[in-house]
Structures are given as C-alpha cells and as structure tokens.
C-alpha cells in the first residue's frame, strides 16, 4: 500500500496538470497581492506612520485607517476583485491536478494493471489520499506565494479594535478574538482551513468521477456545488431567516475568507459543513469500494 501511495502522490504532484492548477490559482493570489501593495503605496505610508504612531503606539487619527499585512493578504483583504476570483475558482484549481485520474485510468483500462496486483480498495484509498494532497498543496502554495509578496511590502502592524482598520474582522465571527490577540495564529488557522478545503474540493471532484464520465463535469463539480450551495443559502435566508440576526454562513467559498462578506461565520457552522462534506466523501468512497467491479 505504501508503495502505491508513494506512486500516486508522485503522479499527482510531479505533473503538468498540477502546475496548471497551481499557476491558475496563483495568478489571482499574485494580482491580489500586487493590488494591495499598490493601494498601500497610495496611502503614503510615511505620513501614515507619522500621524498614527508615536513610540510604537497608535495615536487615533480618523483620516488614516490602519493598513496592515494582516488585512492585506488574500485571505484577509476584501478590496480587490482578485480575492473574489481567488476563492471562486479555488474549487476548480484543486480539481485540475489529479481529481480526474481515476476517470482517466478507468477509461483507458490502466486500472486493470493495478487491480490485478493489489486489492482494489487500496487503490481507491491511495488515489483519494493523493487527490487530497494535490488539492491541498495547490491552495497552500498559492497562499504562500501571496503572503511572500504582501509581507515584503506591507508592515506587520498589530490589529487593534480601538482604531480605524481596513478590512477589520467582525467581533462575532469565527476566531475574531485571535485576529486581535494573535494575528499570526489567526492567519495560520485560516491557511490550514483553506488547505483542508483544497483537499476536500479535490475529493468532491474525485467522487464525482465515480458516477460521471465527462471531464468538464468532474473538474467543475466542486465549483458547481458551491454555486448551488450559495443559491440554496440565499433561498433559505430570504424565505425563512430574513428577519433573523443569526443566520450563519455555511458555504465554504464564503467562510474560507477570514472576513466573511455575507453572513455571520460561526465555528459550529464551519465544523458542521466540513463534517457533512467529509462524511459524504467517505460514504461515496465506501460505496465505490464495495461495488468494486471494473469493466
């Protein structure tokens, strides 16, 4: 099993498809970074520093909201169109590297070479792990690239709730206390959550390939799922919860950003959505493994 797993992971990462997924997502990560640096430059940082800080402490100046690295990275900014596109196409970019490989190997019969040498269950499990790793890695590397670019130009000012702040995290959203007390940890947690979802999106595409034989549908399955979930969320909100203050976000492409732009993000809603998706993927793989006939 370990040798098959090594092989699958190698196939999933050292390929042109992986590079394509990574480059596509990175384009928006880079654009977001460049636009935020440009915006920061336009704020005249020296003047900002002189007016807002003294002996390392902030002085209140309503004309100069604080511009920090923690609200300028792609998971924290809400200013550019690049961040919207980054989170919108993320599900597709995670599927490009390897999620289609079962469909491909089943279609051209390569799977027979493997299925007669090892229990086919191990093949499906190894493939799932490799798909997860490739999707997660694409997201992680795109974030890393954005952070490298942004951190080179924008200072690490500690967020402070008592001061004007661009892209401030709302006080009642998930992990908002960490944004003020330990912004590095806050950022790290969101990167890890996004990395996890990179893998989950890729796996959604992988399980779709069990039932669908069209490449395009397989690649776009997680993206379409998110669009559908967003539509359902709006329908539910408009028809049932319109007057409620407590409607929570359950669409991953919305809550993966540290500053949700539509509904409130709560830890339990994120955990519930994650468990539902992981459960669905797990059950789909189990069903496939039980009905393991290869034609």
């Amino acid at each position: 099993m370990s040798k098959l797993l090594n092989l699958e992971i190698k196939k999933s990462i050292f390929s042109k498809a992986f590079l394509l997924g990574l480059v596509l997502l990175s384009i928006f990560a880079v654009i977001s970074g460049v636009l935020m640096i440009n915006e920061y430059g336009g704020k005249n940082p020296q003047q900002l520093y002189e007016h807002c800080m003294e002996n390392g402490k902030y002085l209140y100046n309503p004309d100069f909201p604080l511009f920090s690295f923690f609200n300028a990275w792609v998971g924290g900014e809400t200013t550019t169109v690049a961040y919207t596109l980054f989170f919108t196409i993320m599900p597709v970019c995670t599927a490009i590297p390897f999620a289609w490989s079962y469909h491909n190997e089943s279609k051209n019969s390569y799977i027979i070479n493997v299925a007669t040498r090892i229990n086919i269950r191990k093949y499906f499990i190894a493939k799932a792990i490799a798909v997860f790793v490739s999707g997660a890695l694409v997201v992680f590397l795109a974030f890393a690239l954005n952070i490298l670019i942004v951190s080179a130009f924008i200072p690490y000012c500690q967020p402070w709730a008592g001061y004007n702040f661009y892209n401030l995290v709302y006080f009642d959203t998930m992990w908002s206390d960490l944004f003020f007390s330990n912004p590095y940890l806050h950022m790290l947690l969101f990167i890890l959550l996004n990395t996890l979802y990179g893998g989950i999106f890729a796996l959604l595409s992988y399980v779709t390939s069990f039932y669908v034989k069209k490449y395009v549908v397989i690649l776009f399955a997680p993206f379409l799922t998110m669009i559908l979930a967003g539509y359902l969320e709006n329908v539910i909100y408009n028809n049932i919860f319109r007057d409620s203050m407590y409607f929570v976000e359950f669409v991953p492409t919305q809550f993966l950003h540290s500053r949700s732009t539509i509904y409130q993000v709560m830890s339990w809603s994120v955990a519930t959505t994650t468990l539902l998706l992981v459960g669905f993927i797990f059950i789909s793989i189990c069903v496939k493994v039980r009905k393991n006939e290869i034609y």
Partner: protein
Amino acid sequence: MDIVFENVTKKIGRNIVVDNASFTIKSNSITGLKGINGSGKTMIMRLISGLIYPTSGKVFIGNKKLGEDISFPDSIGIMLENPAFLNGYNGYDNLRILADIKSIINEDDICEVMKLVGLEESGLKKYRKFSLGMKQRLGIAAAIMEKPEILILDEPTNSLDEDGVEMVKKILRQEKERGATIVLSCHDTQILEDLSDEIIEIQTGKIKGIYAPKEKIM
C-alpha cells in the same frame, strides 16, 4: 491451479453477458476462448481475474472461491484488449512502477522481459511515443513479468507484425513450460488452434462446446 466455473451467469443491466457457464480450465494448460465479437470472451476473462463478480454461480481459483475466499487471484498476469500505461513514463519505468506494487521481481527481471518482447532499446521512449505494436508488446511484458500462475491474454497478437506473432507463440509455449495456466483469446482461429490444448467456444454468453483442437482436426 485449476480454474472452475460453476453455473456462472453475469448480467450487466438487463443484458446477460455470460449465461450459466460451467467448465474447468486445467492447470498448466493453454485454453483458447473462441467466439465472435461480443460473445462474452472478455467477460469470462474479467470474471477469472476478479475484476467483476458473477451475478449467480461460482468461480473457483484452485480451491478458493473468488469474491469470498479471495477478491482476485494471488498470482495473475493479464492483458485485456488495448493495454494502457502511463504516458509520461518510458516502457521500463512503467513496468518498474507496476513491479513495485508487489515487489517480487527486480530490475534484472524487468530488463529480461523487455528483451523477450523486443523492447530492450525502444523501451526507453516515453509511452506516448510508442507505436500500437510496441504498446501491445509492453502489455504482454507487464502480464508475464512477475511469472504469474495464471496468465490471461485477450487478443495478444493485435497490431503485431509477423515477428511479433511468432514472439507471442514462443512466449506462450515458454510460459506453459514454466507451469502457467493460460487463457487466451485470438481472432485468428489458426493461431488459437495451434497453441491451445483445449478450446471453449462461446456464443452470446453461452458455452457452445469444449474441445481439444488436435482431436477435432483428426
């Protein structure tokens, strides 16, 4: 080891692709499957390999029931229809990757089998650049490289030139001498009858007859 089919029926949707088949493939023999396209030859090969399971009936490999005692034969080499490998790797690497799964053969065995199928030099090309004949040769190499107890070859002479056909005949005779149980299908009846100890004739999923070709000729 003997391969035994006991009243095996396989349905795919509403289609019956194998219909109440019962026969025994004797150990250390070459058994030919004869029938027109779509008669069910490949399905029987898939049933033996554990790639699919019977809707009813039983398949035994030795004394072990497929799908209950074992999910697929412990030692099997197979080439079904058009073999497929990884495009980005050369012939040697493709075999190495497959050999790594079981780890029962080494680098020398891979070189030896590549030489046997006539790919010792051209095997260094990327698989995507292989001709149809080369792909077929690599498929045969992958099937025999681990010296399996059961060898299943579906149309092994497809896309091969005369030398290639002779090579297949030679390999099959060597494999039989080694002790393998071989199941073979081939559209060329002459080749099938030359090589086979016994032929199973199939028509629309049903076994029409089992005979030894040499007896029939006589």
